[in-house]
């Protein structure tokens, strides 16, 4: 081996060449006398299959038994004792462990992992090398949850998905809309994070010329938004900042602006208004420079929200009006609806109830026209409570009931609950205690 193969920084996640890893794994199997524990990390099932076949093809003199689990097991040792052939094969490959660990988030606490650690001394009985073909999250779960078992390994060989396969998945993952993130369950978001994380790791390990910085940037952005949805703000910022760095590196001003906007949202969620405003303003500057009117207006609305939350109602009004102007100019009526709803909140806070009512009604008309049920339900709730304050209880009741129905259908529990509470209040005001009881239940 010549010196030129020495790695520049052996601690960076260096590109993995499939051939090098494959060859090393084959040699490990050739060397092994008696029991050895080996891991082959590979995220994609088809690739795993292909690699297992290649390893076997290179070891024609060795009998390999492939044990493909297709359902969950809790005691791997017991399962192996049942299925390992007699006389023993020369090596045992195990695959399909992901069925035993379906949820990545708490995988290291799963009974399967605990049993693996507890039975670590008994795998010795097979007297043959065992290769665990597993995806990254299973490997991490073993490392964290079964440290004794993991510590007796003789090697961990890593295989990265082929570039073609990776880019397909990446497009699918980054194409989703924010509302898709909102509608995912907690477990689904976690799953998605795990998937994107390992995909990203795959990319980072590709040889430099095959890496696609653009996709890496989008994956970081996606992760940032997922972590934001999970209220893990530090992680969200971490990924968004990495995405930002790449966008600057790529001189992609458009993405830079978008990412800055998302960074602002994360700060806003943590009520760090100063940082949020700074990020939004940078984003605003970029969108003006690029003449990206839509992003410009979005940033204005976001700035308005910050001012509103800090009770700077006049400033909030100013930003919303500016945004409305832009939305009108570019004919984005649906965003206009959202801005109007926000503007109405400002008027309501300023005690300008008739202005508020007008804005709500205009906004409501727009969201109805576009079938934007989310905004519609919100607007109806807001207008309903406004009527409630004004003592217009029958108008209020109609709106709140409609909002209740839509929010129930959308699975928006928060809004549903708010509507129920408002309706209960309305009944109470009327002295209708039986109805109120029914609603609170």
């Amino acid at each position, binding site marked *: 081996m010549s010196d030129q193969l020495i790695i520049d920084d052996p601690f960076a996640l260096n590109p993995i060449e499939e051939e090098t890893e494959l060859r090393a794994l084959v040699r490990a199997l050739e060397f092994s006398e008696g029991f050895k524990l080996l891991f082959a990390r590979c995220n994609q099932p088809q690739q795993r299959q292909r690699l297992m076949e290649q390893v076997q093809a290179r070891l024609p003199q060795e009998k390999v038994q492939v044990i493909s689990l297709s359902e969950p097991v809790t005691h791997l040792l017991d399962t192996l004792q049942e299925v390992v052939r007699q006389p023993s094969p020369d090596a045992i490959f195990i695959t399909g462990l992901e069925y035993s660990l379906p949820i990545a988030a708490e995988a290291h606490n799963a009974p399967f992992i605990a049993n693996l650690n*507890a039975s670590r*001394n008994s795998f010795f009985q097979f007297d043959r090398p065992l290769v665990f073909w597993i995806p990254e999250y299973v490997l991490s779960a073993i490392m964290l949850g079964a440290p004794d078992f993991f510590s007796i390994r003789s090697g961990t060989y890593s295989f990265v998905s082929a570039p073609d396969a990776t880019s397909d998945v990446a497009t699918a993952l980054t194409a989703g809309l924010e509302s898709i993130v909102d509608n995912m369950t907690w477990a689904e978001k976690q799953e998605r994070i795990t998937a994107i*994380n390992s995909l990203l790791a795959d990319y980072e390990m590709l040889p430099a010329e095959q890496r696609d910085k653009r996709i890496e940037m989008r994956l970081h952005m996606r992760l940032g938004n997922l972590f934001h949805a999970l209220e893990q703000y530090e992680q969200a910022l971490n990924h968004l900042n990495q995405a930002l760095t790449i966008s600057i590196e790529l001189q992609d001003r458009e993405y830079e602006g978008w990412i800055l906007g998302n960074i602002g949202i994360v700060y806003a969620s943590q009520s760090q208004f100063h940082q949020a405003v700074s990020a939004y303003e940078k984003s605003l500057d970029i969108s003006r420079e690029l003449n990206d009117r839509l992003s410009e207006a979005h940033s204005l609305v976001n700035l308005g929200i910050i001012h509103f939350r800090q009770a700077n109602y006049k400033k909030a009004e100013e930003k919303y009006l500016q945004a409305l102007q832009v939305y009108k100019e570019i004919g984005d009526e649906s965003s206009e609806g959202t801005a109007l709803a926000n503007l109405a909140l400002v008027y309501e806070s300023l005690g300008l109830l008739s202005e508020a009512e007008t804005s709500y009604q205009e906004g409501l008309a727009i969201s109805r026209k576009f079938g934007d049920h989310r905004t519609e339900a919100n607007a109806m709730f807001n207008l309903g409570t406004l009527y409630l304050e004004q003592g217009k209880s029958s108008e209020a009741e109609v709106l709140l009931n409609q909002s209740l129905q839509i929010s129930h259908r959308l699975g928006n529990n928060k809004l549903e609950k708010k509507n129920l509470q408002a309706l209960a209040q309305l009944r109470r005001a009327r002295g209708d205690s039986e109805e109120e009881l029914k609603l609170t239940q």
Partner: protein
Amino acid sequence: MTDPLKHIYNSCDPYMPATAEYYYDCVEARGGSALAHEFQRHLTLAKDHLYFLFSGHIGCGKSSELEELKRSLQSATPPRSCYFPILLNASEYLDDYDTTPTDILLAIVTELADTLRREAGIELRDSYLTKRLNEVKEYFLSDVEIEEGELSLGFAKAKIKRLKKDPTARHKVRSVLEPKMSTLLDEINLTFDEARVALKQNKIGAEQRPCADIVIIVDNLEKIRRIANMEEGLVSQRELFLERHIQLAGMNAHFIYTVPLRLVRSADGPQLHQRYGPSLVLPMIKTIERGTRNPCQAGLSSLRELLRKRLGDLTLTDAFDTKALDFLLTYSGGHVRNLMTFVQNACTYADEIPIPLAAAQKAIQQTVRNYSTAIPEHHWRKLAELDRSLDQKILNGDNDYLVMLENLSVLEYINGGDDDPFAEAEPWYAVNPIVRELQKFKAAAKELQIEEQKKKSQAAASDEAAL
């Protein structure tokens, strides 16, 4: 002739404790005493039986040290006395996730009887214990075996071990034995007395000297994760070693128990010392010096010697390119099992000996990848804090650091007290040298540095303002 790489690969197995052939005493390089020396020193001083606690990282060489202790107790030369050591591997008997002190007592007495029979030809008389054993044997013996008549203690090992895998039988046995715990303990002590007498009549070793006493070495007891009906983890370990210490420290023989490092370094650590007596944490072999981070030559040369013993006819220079060897030793952090895994990995990336630097670097890449993805996000900052701290101590009882000790992202070292007698046996901690090189770690360290500078300049500014 076998491929030399294949030879190296198989002789550096991270799974097997070092045999006498492979054992190398790294006393100086570890900074603390070797177990055998330390334990024997306490034995000569002890007026009563010792209950000695032994701890250390996963894979730092505990089992190898215990094996070595067993050998040296057997073959002690005058003025030291010979002892009769019994090495009990708790994992053979106990279910890590469901154990009670009764199970442990049963395992100890079974191993005692078995070792006495095999190694000294001593068969214990029928006793209360045999009777109890025969009361419960129906739960774990087959009908045919029950027909065979009385089960004698000296032949019970293989059968008692079945309880590990049979929770139903285990629970039935417990329900019979547990109410009789104090009697049981008493009877076990009688059995020890009986064994001691028999051993004193029985001369052992090359010089045919009588044995002074019995030493029971319980290995892998630190692996117990759950005591029956208790919460898993530290809570259970506390229950076993602290709350139930009356049983563990109530048997009349010398004992060594392995305890989890997590427990020793938790807030309960000091209590352990009060209840048991002397203890030893086996530190990593030092590869760097505290504070300065200069290479620790004593440690590096111990690691070299330890490897050389495994190479057989090959010399270190035959086997490794100098740079490759230095690289592997430095980044092992003095953790022996890691070093073994690294060497094995390097063998698979090399075409021939001497193993080149490129192969060593590829071997380390595996661990780089594992740590990059598996270390929880909130650990990075704490790792950076430890690394930047001047005293290199961890907060007693901080659960995150206890987890880091367990997953080896933080390693424990001890300094010998050559210049400062008070510094002796004082542990210090360092971030695993591989973790230290990772980008995420560097980012966290840099962030911390910036914050520290900010604080400093703010402090300076407020000083000025005060003036």
